[in-house]
């Protein structure tokens, strides 16, 4: 990452690769390309890199923390002067042709400049508590905040939608280093690049849109990404699984698969990761609450290939139970107040009613670019994913911008997209003839 000043270009243009999105796919594409000697501009719309994976408690199947791999990647970024990171920035427009694109980047004001040392002095006097989007609203932070302990860059930012600005300005006085600038303005940066990697990722499908699953109706119906934050040690419950309604430890949870996915009314495709994510969350739940039971309602358990062994291990646990069948309804028992999952048990051929403390909806992945698409010659499929660049193009998709995929596929995908981008650059500006020591046959 370039030095303290995050605008190293001074408005100048340069060749190189533009990577849109700073999640695991974007970070990977940026680093892999830069480590092959290419200049990279990495544009992330939020204040920090890491994307969705930074919010996960653990990865399947190794049950290891995603921050471990992120730390290695952040270290690579810190050491690399060829990756230029722009946070709070969006790509507005990409014009041109393979080898010669001009991109317009719109950088929103962070209201905290590069003098920020992350000491935290600004946050203490801030009077505004706002719902924390990193925890999907299950906790609050001050409006000037670091985001989370693994934030990269490790700089504070202000949430403009809740800040009182000049009516308060306590943070300005509190900062010993003159880092808070409430009058920072939006800016536009022009970049000239040879190729583009779109790695804008995904967002959870709106579970509230699935009426029968009662999300938003009962507080103890949560989504898989919310449970993931509860399971995370740096999350709203510091890793404990507690019932949102009363804060008591969860003794039984129902995992409702395909909440939105494989459903023509919602997402027609399969979101790929939810079966494994639920099995992972079930085993983490049992690790935290050993007395608890986890009940998975599924149509097909999609745990292919390498993941089969993991699934077998989780399913062998006596407290993990499964029902093949779709969940029809989530109700509340009027007497006990407990939630009841009503499902069509395909094997038993009967409706089944299961009372539980917590219902976890495996809400699917929706491409982030269903909204806020840049003005650019990018083809989208009917579901909003970026269609793979045809040969001869210079804009490539990676990770969940291309298709719903797991992290292992996203990182591989990102490396491939980086290579395809480099090929476009090299064809526009070839390297000197290769050194060959191939003997003539």
């Amino acid at each position, binding site marked *: 990452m370039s030095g303290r000043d995050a605008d190293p270009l001074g408005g100048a243009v340069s060749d190189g690769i533009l990577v849109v999105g700073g999640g695991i796919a974007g970070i990977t594409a940026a680093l892999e390309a830069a480590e092959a000697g290419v200049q990279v501009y990495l544009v992330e719309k939020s204040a920090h890199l890491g994307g969705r994976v930074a919010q996960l408690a653990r990865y399947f199947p190794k049950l290891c923390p995603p921050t471990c791999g992120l730390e290695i*990647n952040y270290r690579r970024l810190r050491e690399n002067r060829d990756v230029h990171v722009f946070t709070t920035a969006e790509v507005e427009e990409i014009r041109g042709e393979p080898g010669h694109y001009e991109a317009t980047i719109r950088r929103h004001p962070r209201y905290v400049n590069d003098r920020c040392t992350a000491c935290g002095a600004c946050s203490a006097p801030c009077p505004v508590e706002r719902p924390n989007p990193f925890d999907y609203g299950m906790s609050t932070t001050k409006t000037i905040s670091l985001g989370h302990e693994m934030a990269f860059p490790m700089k504070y930012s202000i949430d403009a939608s809740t800040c009182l600005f000049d009516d308060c300005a306590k943070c300005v006085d509190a900062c010993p280093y003159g880092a808070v600038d409430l009058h920072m303005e939006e800016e536009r940066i022009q970049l000239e690049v040879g190729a583009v990697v779109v790695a804008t990722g995904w967002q959870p499908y709106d579970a509230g849109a699935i009426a029968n699953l009662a999300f938003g109706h009962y507080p103890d119906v949560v989504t898989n990404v919310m449970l993931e934050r509860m399971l995370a040690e740096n999350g709203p419950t510091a890793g404990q699984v507690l019932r949102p309604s009363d804060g008591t430890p969860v003794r039984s949870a129902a995992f409702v698969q395909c909440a939105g996915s494989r459903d023509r009314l919602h997402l027609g495709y399969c979101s790929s990761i939810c079966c494994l994510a639920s099995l992972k969350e079930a085993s983490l739940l049992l690790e935290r609450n050993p007395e608890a039971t986890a009940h998975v309602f599924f149509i097909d358990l*999609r745990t292919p290939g390498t993941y089969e062994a993991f699934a077998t291990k989780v399913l062998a646990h006596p407290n993990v139970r499964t029902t093949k069948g779709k969940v029809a309804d989530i109700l509340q028992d009027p007497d006990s107040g407990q939630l009841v999952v009503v499902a069509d048990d395909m094997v038993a051929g009967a409706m089944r009613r299961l009372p539980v403390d917590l219902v976890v909806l495996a809400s699917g992945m929706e491409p982030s670019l269903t909204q806020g698409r840049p003005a650019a010659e990018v083809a989208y499929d009917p579901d909003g994913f970026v269609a793979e660049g045809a040969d001869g193009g210079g804009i490539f998709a990676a990770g969940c911008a291309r298709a719903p995929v797991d992290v292992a596929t996203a990182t591989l995908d990102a490396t491939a997209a980086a290579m395809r981008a480099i090929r476009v650059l090299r064809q526009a500006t070839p390297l000197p003839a*290769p050194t060959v020591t191939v003997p003539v046959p």
Partner: protein
Amino acid sequence: MSAEKRAGVYLCHGCGIGDSVDVDALAATARSTGGVTVTRTSRAFCLEDAELIASDIEAQALDAVVVAACSPRVNRQVFGFGAVKVERVNLREQVAWSHPPREEATEELAADLLRMGIAACGYASAPTPHTQAHQRSVVVVGAGPAGLEAAVAAADAGYAVTVVEREPEAGGFLRRIHRCWPSRPNVDTSLENPHLDELVERAVSHPNVTLRTSTTVEALVGEPGHFVASLQSASGATEVVAGSVVLATGSEPLASEHFAAYGLGTLPDVITSSEMEELARQGEIRRPSDGRVASRVAILACDGPSDDANLPYTGTVASMVALKQAVYVHDSQPDAEVFLVYEDMQTPGFDELYYRFVQRQRGVYLVRGHVSSVDQGEDGHLGVVARDSVLARDVRFDVDLVVLDIGMVPTSAPSLSEPVNLHLKYLQGEAMPLERSGFVDSNFLCFPFETRRTGIYAAGAVHRSQDVAASRRDGAAAALKAVQVVEKASTGEAVHPRVGELGYPQFFMQKCTACGRCTQECPFGALELDEARHPVINPNRCRRCGICMGACPVQVISFPDYSVEMVSAMQKAVELPEDDSKPRVLVLACENDAYPAIDMMGINRLQYPAHLRVLPVRCLGSVNAITVTDAIQRGFDGVALLGCRSGEDYQCHFIQGSELLGTRMDNVRETLGRLALEEDRVQVLETSIADARRLPDLLAGFAAGVAELGPNPMKGF
């Protein structure tokens, strides 16, 4: 610090450090230390005052700089001064933010950390990079879709590529495939022609690509930047020099013996999915026994309770093969009936849409369950009995043809009669390290190309179970890694994860006992033996973990900027008070996981005992037993080794580091026994980067255990 070194010490007041400790007193400590030429303080060195450091380096000809401020995890480039050694002393996260201010214990901690940092500078010299190897060329082994894509990608990027294919023509397994399933069934559900000939033509006609068919690799020697592949073909032997290698030898169907229960091999009309491709290529699907057009076909997923051998190799591919082949039957005979028996339809992502498309085809019946028997019925039919798990009863159907959906085994798998082998002339063996099912892979999650044989990258079906489109992406990605490693080798820089590191292990051969342990323990096979059985390093294979350094029983291995002496000097810089109320515990912490977790205690303002002295190490595997025993013999009351999980789901970035520590600890325990000291004074504590909230208790618990043992009797000797 050695007298010839000139170091500057820069102490920061910022971010609460000045409130927590007496920075002027620390400056006085620095000034009284030998070799310290200049000492300065600042309210915030990361801002304008960073220039003071730069100008001192120039004016005072400093060769080392100690920045006593924030964690090395931040401001890396602000405090980067070219070739000058920079040692970061973490007074912010690990002192000011995690210990009570202005207490004696906190001040002592800060002073010790400062002394450790200054001591480290004395043992760092600028590395001389290894830059001899620079071949801008790649050998690709295997000319299937992954290999061809890798070849064209590397060639387009300006590299000379030699593709080696053992068959007489390029194309790999794809040559046997009739059609591919649609990659975007939400746009188009038609089966796709793989256009193999175009892919082959693109590679063959590329000026940077040389294709050698009917050729095998007989030996591979060298290192990234300069490998020599010995090739063998009917026309003779030849050698190719290349900077890196892509292994794309694909997969083959699982052996038929695993499917005997389905009648494969005994009933002529029971065939495999790859045989079905052959039939489909011929047009109408005619059954082998009598050549009659098959109008009733059973496709069996072979994913039931007795198919354990098949399951690791079916991946997401097998279900799609079954669906696609159901469409073949339909295309061949519009009135045909197809029964597809499966337990779980593995069609993630867009494949789901193809599954739904096939479900809607007339005459295609999906039966969820598993097969209990396949028999030769009367009048030439085969009888298939399946347990239908939805209807919870047995169903029977008579068919003309049974197709078994057989998993694809990577050509590297040891279970094959002749697994593909690059014949690496490496001391650690000729074969590539494999994951448990035989794929060429080591960490498929965060870093899919992290290989234990640096410079050799797997792609396609030998890497993981994947379809043609994914294999081609994998090929392009492996080509990038192949190109990258050559560029890094040309400047002597390490690749993942210590990217850019220049220093590599040096051996003080006069003292080497030729025990060979370093060569065995290196996770990357970087070390070979010479005739005197002394280790020889291939620097570009080395990933700079330091495991060899930890392994050496006589401590002859060191990096220019990381060594047993350096760690030892840091440990010795800690003052050990004779006062029994002031115990001291040394914490050797893995740099990537444990150290950041300790930082995050500080970021969360969580406290841990101030008498702990944290010393970051590259990997616990780089810790030499003597470091631990020296610390104990010097009088540390305890030593904790904080590192990653080992075993099957290991988290060590150097694969075996935390595992190897186990054997090192045996030596440590032996020494403790000899000294009549309690074993519990030294412990390995497994931790992860997410443990910031668990660490205060874990560390305090260890410290309490040590306290119970009483002061180390060796103290003061």
